[in-house]
């Protein structure tokens, strides 16, 4: 009996599951007619096949057959009329999981250190630990326990094994002491932030100066002040803080009324001393507390804000000197701080006129050169002075000019004191005391002002600078001269000051909003590299020599011009000849080598030409002969 299985049996409800449409191929019982697909209604597709009743339940034997086109629905362009084309389309059709990136920063975690006192405990309730009898009784009871005995025997044997092991060989001995630590030459320079100290005051002030504590380097003194001239809002606190590096949440000590621009300088002997934005230098004693210990009198001190103070190396350890924009540099003794011991006026015309004096912004003093000191001025000139000169006029030894703006930082290289670094306007410059007309090395002009700079105390070729756009640059001129070796964006606001710790590893920088960031520099930047001292010194010397040569040239040119103006040509020509001889010899050598080089090149080119051109032998031969002639001539030339 043949049955026709239709998609829909008459009288029975249609299967709701569209997948129940039978689409299998069964075995056709000998030439059964093909099922005829029919489009009964709009979307219905019917598939009919015939099967013998006796074959119900039989296994399916699959066989291959050609693909058959069951339905072909051609596109109906008339349907397009119902739609409007949209161009451009702003819907994304990517089939992927949509994800979003999210950053989370945890809230600052406040920590406090507390101790715990151990008291004897654990005794059962009926035993009073203070009563000797009861405790003895308890112990006796425990010792009688069989468990105890077994446990101890077992543990004892294990323990003995370990003890004997310890005695037999020291397993933690250093075996390879002689080998040096592997050099980390390939490590890229890097720096990471260790800690951030935020100004706890609500009204933010700029962190203008930083100092490390001389022993142990675990404390940092930060001076805060408002740099806008007389625009400090009411209620701005005038405290400066001493921070302990372990505790970034709360400053260790607050120094009242210390709104200073200038360094809180730790002394070798006494505690810190800052000097104020107000013109009178003052001294705080951290042992005594946070109020001012000593204050100088206004009549005798500076008339303008004091921008630089340094402690002097003296037997008493109580001397310091300060510089301010009123053009004076004053020496003080802490014990008698009411009056300066000495005053020098920064007048480069050497006439001691305060009106002509240049405002001093930074001071430099190296304890290995105790009689010399340098002052950086607002006008961009560095003045080198000698403290021990007899007359005040002789105190000013020489000047170095080259910056377009105030010199914010001035420091001698700790390894080569003849060279010093100045930071001002948009560049940092390295100078040598020998060349007075210009700096020997300088960075390119940056996009933001440079605010502070310092040499690294461990490496002679590394120095750090901070900029107004919040970046800290680490320069290593042994590695790269045109760009900083590493440039880090420390914060979004401007960075104002920078201080390197003595071990060269840690740098603290202070920003406009009073945030001090402590950074650790990678090992490569803080350990002395092989040969670095030699390389750095040779670079300094080379640049100094270059500057000297240029200076000499300039001088000649100036003299020449002067000579022309005054009509003294002969003298100048003689001088020129003498000095030009060197230049001429150099130029002649250069020409000679150039000629040789071009001829060699020509020879090579001709040799190349000869090989491929086989057809034009004749012409070639002629050429070759011609070449040989010229070659011979050149050879003769070379020999001569």
């Amino acid at each position: 009996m043949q049955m026709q299985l239709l998609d829909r049996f008459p009288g029975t409800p249609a299967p709701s599951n569209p997948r129940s449409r039978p689409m299998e191929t069964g075995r056709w019982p000998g030439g059964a007619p093909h099922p005829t697909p029919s489009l009964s209604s709009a979307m219905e597709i019917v598939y009919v096949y015939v099967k013998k009743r006796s074959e119900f339940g039989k296994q399916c034997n699959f066989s291959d057959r050609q693909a058959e086109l069951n339905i072909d629905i051609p596109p109906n362009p008339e349907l397009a009329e119902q739609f409007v084309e949209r161009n451009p389309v702003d819907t994304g059709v990517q089939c992927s999981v949509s994800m979003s990136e999210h950053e989370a920063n945890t809230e600052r975690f406040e920590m406090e250190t507390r101790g715990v006192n151990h008291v004897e405990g654990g005794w059962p309730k009926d035993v009073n630990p203070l009563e000797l009898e009861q405790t003895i009784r308890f112990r006796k009871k425990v010792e009688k326990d069989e468990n105890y005995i077994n446990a101890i025997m077992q543990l004892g044997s294990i323990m003995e094994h370990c003890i004997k092991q310890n005695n037999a060989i020291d397993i933690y001995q250093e075996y390879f002491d002689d080998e040096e630590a592997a050099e980390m030459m390939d490590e890229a320079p890097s720096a990471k932030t260790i800690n951030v100290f935020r100004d706890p005051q609500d009204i933010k002030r700029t962190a203008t100066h930083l100092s490390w504590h001389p022993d142990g380097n675990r404390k940092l003194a930060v001076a805060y002040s408002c740099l806008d001239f007389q625009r400090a809002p009411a209620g701005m606190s005038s405290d400066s803080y001493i921070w302990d590096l372990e505790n970034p949440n709360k400053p260790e000590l607050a120094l009242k009324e210390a709104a200073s621009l200038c360094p809180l300088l730790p002394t070798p002997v006494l505690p810190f001393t800052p000097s104020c934005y107000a013109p009178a230098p003052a001294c705080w004693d951290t042992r005594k507390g946070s109020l001012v210990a000593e204050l100088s009198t206004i009549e005798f001190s500076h008339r303008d804000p004091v921008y630089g103070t340094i402690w002097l190396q003296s037997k008493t350890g109580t001397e310091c000197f300060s510089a301010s924009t009123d053009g004076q540099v004053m020496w003080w003794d802490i014990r008698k701080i009411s009056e300066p011991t000495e005053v020098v006026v920064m007048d480069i015309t050497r006439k001691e006129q305060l009106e002509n004096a240049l405002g001093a912004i930074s001071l430099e003093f190296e304890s290995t050169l105790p009689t010399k000191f340098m002052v950086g001025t607002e006008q961009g000139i560095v003045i080198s002075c000698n403290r021990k000169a007899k007359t005040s006029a002789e105190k000013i030894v020489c000047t170095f000019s080259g910056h377009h703006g105030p010199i914010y930082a001035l420091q001698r290289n700790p390894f080569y004191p003849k060279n010093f670094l100045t930071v001002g306007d948009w560049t940092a410059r390295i100078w040598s005391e020998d060349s007075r007309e210009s700096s020997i090395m300088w960075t390119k002009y940056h996009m933001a002002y440079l605010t502070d700079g310092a040499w690294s105390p461990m490496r002679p070729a590394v120095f750090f600078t901070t900029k107004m756009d919040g970046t800290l640059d680490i320069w290593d001129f042994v590695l790269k001269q045109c760009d900083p070796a590493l440039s880090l964006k420390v914060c979004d606001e401007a960075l104002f000051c920078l201080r390197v710790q003595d071990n060269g590893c840690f740098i603290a920088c202070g920003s406009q909003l009073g945030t001090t960031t402590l950074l650790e520099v990678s090992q490569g930047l803080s350990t002395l590299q092989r040969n670095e001292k030699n390389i750095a010194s040779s670079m300094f010397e080379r640049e100094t020599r270059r500057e000297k040569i240029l200076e000499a040239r300039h001088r000649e040119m100036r003299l020449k011009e002067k000579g022309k103006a005054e009509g003294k040509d002969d003298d100048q020509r003689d001088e020129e000849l003498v000095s030009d001889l060197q230049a001429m010899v150099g130029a002649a050598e250069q020409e000679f080598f150039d000629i040789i080089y071009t001829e060699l090149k020509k020879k090579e080119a001709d040799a190349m030409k000869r090989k491929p051109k086989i057809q034009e032998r004749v012409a070639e031969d002629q050429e070759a002969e011609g070449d040989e002639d010229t070659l011979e001539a050149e050879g003769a030339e070379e020999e001569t």
Partner: protein
Amino acid sequence: MGGRPSRSPARSPLPHLRPIAPGLGEPQAEVEETLKRIQSHKGVIGNMVVNAEGIPIRTTLDNSTTVQYAGLLHQLTTKARSTVRDIDPQNDLTFLRIRSKKHEIMVAPDKEYLLIVIQNPCE
């Protein structure tokens, strides 16, 4: 016939610890002997037995030091044991050694007791 001479109780060096009573001698004596032997090894500074609650049962050091060691090491051993078992529940702590600059503290843990020895290893 004379009876066996009665064994005089051994004198223990620390008065507050019970002297070995005759009759219960053997296992106790072994315990004592073990601990004494441990103490006599080269470099051993002191030893102590602490029970599960942190109460020192026997010690060769003074009371305050003992109490401190007992309290601190008991907690540390518990922590170490739980660490080992967290990583692999079938594992267990067999020995704990803490090497410091000055000496080495060795802890042999048991279900109920801890044997702690402080040794100064030869360098």
